[in-house]
């Protein structure tokens, strides 16, 4: 039996803000039936630009329900800028703490909020759009792991599992999680020195564009794929369409295939041109 605080118990047995906001401004859905918990958050902005109403629907255990309800209470009255800064820690603190094995419930709340804000801004939901999927069982990316490690000062794989579930399934990604933690803590502070190429906003000639695409793939994309046993090959560039082919483990891995296109595209858009579209062609 878990040791829940009285506040967790209260928000579990008498949750507030259950349901969906009518005509919501933002909708965030995270988790899945397979994972064992899921949260759908809806919010509506008031005329003052602050969150006027927020409601949740949650499938999950007592701490997932309590965290979701707590989240809706916390964000009401916040501007989106304020809400964006809310972390899983705020949710856990609001509830007087959660058992460590249940911290992932608070992380799910933070992710749903981020997803809802991104939805309001017309962006893709966070976890599917950025980063490389490290834990295939629960679909957790390296960026999520990094963020939760920094926010909550986590140093062990076990803690990462408690907060994100990553590593809690087949356990195959445990070494990769350790590598991420090593990177986060041993080389901290490591501001990622990304100097956007000066040419980015200038119109590029075709030659320049091709060269920049090749460089970006080489520098930003290939190392990440190789770390995962895969590779990428540039097949052709047709106007703004970049045709690539995935090699090795990447090509057969359904979980990463879905996110990979978006990952490559986001990198190319960041470093080359906002108009690029990545298409995968079979080798």
């Amino acid at each position, binding site marked *: 039996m*878990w040791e829940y605080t009285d506040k967790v118990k209260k928000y*579990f*047995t008498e*949750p507030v803000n*259950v*349901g*969906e906001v009518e005509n919501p401004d933002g909708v965030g*859905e995270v988790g899945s*039936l*397979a994972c*064992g*918990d*899921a*949260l*759908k958050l809806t919010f509506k902005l008031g005329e003052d630009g602050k969150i006027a109403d927020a409601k949740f*629907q*949650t*499938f*999950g*255990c*007592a701490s*997932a*329900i309590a965290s979701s309800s707590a989240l809706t209470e916390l964000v009401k009255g916040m501007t989106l800028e304020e809400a964006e800064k809310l972390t899983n820690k705020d949710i856990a603190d609001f509830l007087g703490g959660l058992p460590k094995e249940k911290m992932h419930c608070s992380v799910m709340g933070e992710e749903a909020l981020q997803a809802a804000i991104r939805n309001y801004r017309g962006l893709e939901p966070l976890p599917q759009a950025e980063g490389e999927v490290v834990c295939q*069982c*629960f679909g957790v990316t390296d960026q999520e792991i990094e963020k939760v490690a920094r926010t909550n000062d986590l140093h062990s794989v076990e803690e990462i*599992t408690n907060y994100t*579930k990553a590593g*809690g*399934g087949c356990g195959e990604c445990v070494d990769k999680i350790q590598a991420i933690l090593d990177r986060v803590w041993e080389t901290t502070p490591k501001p990622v020195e990304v100097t956007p190429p000066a040419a980015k906003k200038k119109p590029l000639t075709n030659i320049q564009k091709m060269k920049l695409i090749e460089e970006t793939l080489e520098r930003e994309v290939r190392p990440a794929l190789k770390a995962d046993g895969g590779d990428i090959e540039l097949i052709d560039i047709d106007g703004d369409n970049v045709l690539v082919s995935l090699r090795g483990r990447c090509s057969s891995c359904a979980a990463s295939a879905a996110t990979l296109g978006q990952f490559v595209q986001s990198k190319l858009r960041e470093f080359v041109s906002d108009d690029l579209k990545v298409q995968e062609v079979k080798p």
Partner: protein
Amino acid sequence: MSGERVIYMDNNATSQVAPEVVAAMLPFFAERYGNPSSMHNFGGQVAAKVDAARAQVAELLGASPEEIVFTSCGTESDNTAISSALASQPGKRHIVTTRVEHPAVLNTCQSLATQGYDVTFLKVDRQGNLDLEALAEAIREDTALVSVMWANNETGVVFPAEEIAEICAAKGVLFHTDAVQAVGKVPMNLSNTAISMLALSGHKLHAPKGIGVLYVRKGTPFVPFMKGGHQEHGRRAGTENVPYIIGMGAAAQLAAQYLEEENTRVRALRDRLEAGLLEVEATMVNGDLERRLPNTSSVSFEYVEGESILLHLSSQGICASSGSACTSGSLEPSHVLRAMGVPFTAAHGSIRFSLSIYNTDEDVDHVLEHMPGIIEQLRTMSPFWSKYQQTKCATPGYVEP
């Protein structure tokens, strides 16, 4: 928790110690504390009582007293059986077991698999049944042991242990069965079977925690797990846990008496409970309905999560278990339900009710009174439930699953 009435329907986890058992045990703490191995009469009288308890257990199982070894728990009995089979047949390094075993066997075998032993984990079908032909085919020249549970702790599905024992005997292979859930609920007469070893646990049949039994058929090669003194005829070292052995004997005698009631009155209670629960929309029973323990019902309430259900039940004084991830101590739902291919929509919302002779009609009424409201409340909150409702409305000719 209201602190008033406790409706205990978690007997596959542990059971109430019978008052008769407690009464039988009490004199052996402060008054008759002699060591059965001692040469004096004070200890010798205790030895006679230990033998009487051994005879009681043998009677329940249809075995001879010499075939009964007292251990500390069911897990020790399982570990002893497996390690003995390997140690007594050093050339044989293969084990056949199933994917749905209790961790006492499953994790032991998984650990052996990392130590150079070869383990075949047999599949089960959607109803949780084994394919006996596949089992026979899995047995090889170097198979040291087949270990298959008699009844599953989560679903109550009963495997044909006696039939499996025959298959193994015909191939000259030892057969061990974890019968922790079956003893006292399934009639058995081991003298008429080919079962080599059988594990049982006291606290599942109204004895206290901390006492188990390993049945070792006469003529079965045996190497002890606990090494040391000569206790238990050299098969389990360590001073006998006398009060608990006495309790085990008393519980075995009671179990023999209650076997019929388990299969009539308790079964009827379980069936009425299950029928009532199935009236809740989108629910299903896990496991073969026919080949099942009389006291167990694993019901899945789709689109809701088990821990939430258990906590609401608990606040009504009702004790049950779940195979959901949040309660399994891991992040994935029960290995038994996954092996059966129970969909995730249902595995996370599975609740196991396991009854005993101490349950009453009023207990069943109480659960049936509260359960529909609990499920409805949680479903109102579940994003998947509203999606499921929409699909249902949008699908012409939709039939309830």
